[in-house]
């Protein structure tokens, strides 16, 4: 099949894809290579709510003096979140649950997830705090389970995104002119 036709089909496919997904219209770059793929992946992440506008803010902060800023911050976020989730697990495992402590942890998780733009994780924190107020261990455990799930999901997505970016740069940077 002719490449041009292929490209057309691809564009049409992507266009229909995004139209089906939401009412927003996307204008996307159809540089038909990894960049486009990464871009579209990122757009899907945004659309599905894994990431929000705050993440874009982070990307805009990245510059030549801090070329790995986003990765750095996200790594900090991973580390912090995993620690908090562990603390939460332990705290809810106690015979007498210290709900104030649990609430403090959730609050911090909410802060850090909102700062990196991990929207779904942040959204899980709100009902969690309500459960803490009600001092209901069972509902808290359920919330914790959800947070764990959402966290693992967003971690996966972000890692995928970063690896894509890595490969783009690797592709662009490593290949000399070849004949």
């Amino acid at each position, binding site marked *: 099949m002719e490449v041009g036709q292929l490209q057309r089909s691809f564009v049409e496919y992507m266009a229909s894809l995004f139209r089906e997904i939401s009412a927003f219209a996307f204008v996307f770059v159809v540089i038909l*290579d990894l960049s486009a793929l990464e871009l579209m992946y990122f757009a899907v992440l945004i659309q599905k709510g894994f990431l929000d506008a705050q993440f874009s803010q982070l990307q805009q902060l990245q510059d030549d003096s801090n070329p790995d800023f986003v990765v750095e911050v996200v790594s900090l976020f991973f580390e912090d979140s995993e620690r908090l989730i562990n603390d939460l697990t332990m705290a809810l495992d106690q015979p007498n649950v210290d709900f104030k402590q649990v609430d403090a942890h959730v609050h911090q998780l909410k802060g850090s997830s909102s700062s990196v733009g991990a929207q779904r994780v942040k959204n899980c924190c709100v009902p969690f705090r309500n459960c803490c107020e009600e001092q209901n261990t069972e509902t808290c455990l359920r919330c914790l389970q959800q947070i764990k799930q959402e966290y693992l999901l967003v971690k996966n997505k972000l890692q995928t995104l970063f690896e894509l970016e890595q490969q783009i740069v690797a592709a662009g940077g490593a290949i000399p002119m070849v004949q």
Partner: protein
Amino acid sequence: MNLGVGSVVKTMSGASCSVSWKSGGSDKVPDQFPAGLRVLVVDDDPTCLRILEKMLRNCHYEVTKSNRAELALSMLRENRNGFDIVISDVHMPDMDGFKLLEHVGLEMDLPVIMMSADDSKDVVMKGVTHGACDYLIKPVRIEALKNIWQHVIRKKKHEWKDKDFDQSTSMEDGDQQQKPPEDVDYSSSANEGNWKSSKRRKEEEDETEERDDLSTSKKPRVVWSVELHQQFVQAVNQLGIDKAVPKKILELMNVPGLTRENVASHLQKYRLYLRRLSGVSQHQNGLNNSFMGHPEATYGTMTSFNGLELQALAATGQLPAQSLATLQAAALGRSATKSAISMPLDQRNLFSFENPKLRFSEGQQQLNNSNKQINLLHGIPTTMEPKQLADLHQSSQSFVAMNMQGHARMQQNNALLMHMSQQQQQSSRAQMLNETNNGQVSLPPLSMSQPAAVLSRNSIVDNVRGPVYNPVPQTSSMVDFSLNQTTELQNNSFPLVSSNSGMSTLTSKRLLQEEVNSDIKGSRGFPPGYDIFEELHQQKTQDWGLPNVGSTFGTSDHSNMPGTLDVSPSMLVQQGISSMKKNGQNGNSLMGGSQLNLFSGGNLLTVKAEQLPDTSYQNTFFPEQFGQDDLMSALLKQQESVGQVETEFGFDGYSPLDNHPV
């Protein structure tokens, strides 16, 4: 960078210089202002801390960050004039943000901005009443940080005016014409005529007596060290809170170089602080519990002590100063739980006349009052009715003194806590970073500056933007991948393949990719390529019930290997990428209005709230199987996934690329 817990990092933006514009008495600010504003950021959340630091540096501020409040406080004390403004989180494990706020206000008189993910009204109100000059809700945007310099200016203005006023007061005759600051404070709180007049008489006496003492030159900024404050508190206690007037306090303290004005303003703050203390004793104080251990046993007896007794004890040497501090600190820390019992009456009183005080100060228009209001906002007492304050339980006053003296203790604990947590954090951090950075491969600089070449096709035309398009000559060939030009590509597979075309020619690249992929964690399931298509696939099968996708991959035979791949696509891609990298951040400024601008790996994605004209694309994508195939295979080659191929595309049997001849 590896930031261990308890460390302090000072960073400067490239363009900033350390501009000292703390010179008193001048309304002018340096030209570079607000660049070089010295900001201290305190937050225990490392993610937020890092983000804030970067944002502030982007604003050309000079940033010092700390994840420990105590550390930040000691830094501030060591270098009183080293900072212009403090930004602090509300919820911190080692010290409550409001406590830090109080300390900073009391000791250093710097503007403090509070921030939190908590946007509930009462917390914000707490910030206001404690004297924060602003309250930011997380996630903090850079726009919010750009204007923080206003708080510094505002504060300075009030300080200068206050000082000016003090001087003019001292030089003029007459009783009623000008009100010294403390006078207004006293009156502002009470609103009682009788008391007011009697108080004023008293104050005026003091004033006339001291007028001669005052110098006409600008007074240097007084540093209220812990020791100085201790002396102050002793003097106040000795005099009795109702009789503690600045002049007498000054005499008792007997500190050379200290002026009545200094004492007066400090007294205001102190009184408000006391009030604050009783008022918020319901809430948990954030003092470090590590130095509670000792006084636990003695706390029970604390509540019956009043400040004078304590001081007396200390004086007689029965309570050494150290343990006094500890006791007081513990008592203060525990006041949250126990003081409520010990002084219920006082709290009621405090609350009852706290409100009128606030109301009154709101109503006042005079500069003095706005000054007082600022003092008020510091969480420091401005109400100076001796009668009413006499109701203040002595123990609460002593608790405050304890708090001051507890500082020494806090600092001692810093090092220990820092050390412990530092060790723990660093090891976990190093591990994490290794994990996420895929160990072996160091991330090359990822340029954000790849403007998008926008393809237009049929109904998607409307969103083409000229500047974004960026038709640089080098990219034009790249852009020529567009629909109309197919001559460049001489192979059958998608140009997506192009990025891996190097594989056909460079084993080194393959190695690189292998390295990249070798650290793919098992927990991740399947490699990125599949992940992406999983995302897309989910949508597709949902909406269009496309059956093709799964089957195509299963049958893909990779006959469309890029063996026939011409060099040109890859060349073009390289050129495209490298030139787009050069093209800076043009795209950034172009996107505005109601659009969500997304940068991803340097490409620009604009999401507009528009509708695409309806075209029925339902079942027309990749009517030919191999279209999807090509895309998939291209992706597969790039990924060089090794064995981790559980996909919903039924791809079990797929073997990695390196088994295929290239």
